[in-house]
């Protein structure tokens, strides 16, 4: 493995701070907002139905989505927070954020077109767990979260991640670890 000098961006990534920020913000938010959806699946089902994206028949599709999605958010958020399966959880949460954002923006546009409400004044309960929200602010927030989620997928750093503990143990049992693999800030899963 070559020891090429790191680019400034990779140097910053190697500090582990960008990833830590992404993990805390995205992971913490998803884990926290999943709890009310898990506690009240019926109301979350109603919110999903409001978007009209999923067909009503067969009902299993809507119902399974309402049951499973909050748990994907919770486990994905916790995994990111703890630093386990960082790339996978980042990818799942990024995909969900992109889907949510498109759905919210489409619904806002639909309200704008049918009711004539100015886009900047449109507010509704997006089913995100935060109650009534101003939609343009929600879309902007989601864009920031998408960037942070993608950062989690892209980052090579595993500093302050629980996965580092497991990989260290694995390497300790290995007969000939490579020198580069012993640098915790540059470990990959």
């Amino acid at each position, binding site marked *: 493995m070559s020891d090429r000098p790191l680019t400034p961006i990779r140097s910053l990534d190697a500090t582990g701070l960008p990833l830590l920020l992404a993990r805390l913000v995205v992971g913490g938010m998803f884990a926290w907002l999943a709890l009310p959806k898990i506690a*009240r*699946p*019926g109301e979350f089902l*109603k919110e999903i139905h409001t978007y009209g994206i999923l067909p009503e028949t067969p009902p299993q599709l809507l119902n399974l989505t309402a049951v499973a999605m909050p748990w*994907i958010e919770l486990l994905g958020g916790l995994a990111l927070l703890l630093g386990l399966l960082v790339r996978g959880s980042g990818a799942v949460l990024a995909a969900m954020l992109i889907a949510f954002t498109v759905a919210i923006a489409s619904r806002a546009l639909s309200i704008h077109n049918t009711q004539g409400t100015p886009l900047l004044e449109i507010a509704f309960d997006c089913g995100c767990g935060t109650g009534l929200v101003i939609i343009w602010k929600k879309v902007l927030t989601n864009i920031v979260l998408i960037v942070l989620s993608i950062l989690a997928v892209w980052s090579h750093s595993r500093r302050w991640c629980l996965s580092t503990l497991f990989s260290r143990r694995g390497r300790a049992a290995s007969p000939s670890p490579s020198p580069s693999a012993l640098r915790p800030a540059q470990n990959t899963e």
Partner: protein
Amino acid sequence: MGAFKTAMLEALLLVVAAVGVALAANAVSDRGLKLSKDYFRRIQIVEPAGAKDANRAPIVPAPAPADRPAPTSTTGDIATPDATTPRESSSLADEPLTAEGLRVLSLAEVYDYNQYITEDGASIVFVDARNDEAYRHGHIPGALQIDPWNEDAYLPEVLPVLQGATMIVCYCGGGDCEDSIHLATRLVFDHGLPLENVYLFKGGWEEWTGANHPVRTGEAP
């Protein structure tokens, strides 16, 4: 292993694990969803024809027994009774009962029927289909509550009352709210209440409070 492949494998592992946990949790939770149940089945709605016809006779609550006592005075934290509110007149007797539809009541009809709710009687029952917070904040006097998105928590107590009633008026927030329709549909199809006993107040809470009719706060009906 490439970063992309790693991300996809980890994502798959995460989703499979989460779906497994979700199904297990849903199976043991008393708030769990029934996966094969159509929660959005809607009964046909029959709008009243000519409800605003001023020449119609004053409302006579047909399901009420002839010897039913006069409208009772409500007690507790009733607010803003407005006896001067002009009422529309219409008669349910004029509306043909449609075997396949849920009949809609006007505000005036709902107001009049509400006067026949008594503490001990169950002939006319109002059912509030909003959540706990909204119900505590204010509801139509005498209305029981069933949150249709957590109905199992309310049905053991409320269903026996509804089974003894001859008139059940369902309402929710009004406006675009459809929870009262879903609740009424389930009362008929899932819980076997006679369709002819179930009515819908589409204007709901919004229309009721907009007319300054009395409201009651707290958990008691």
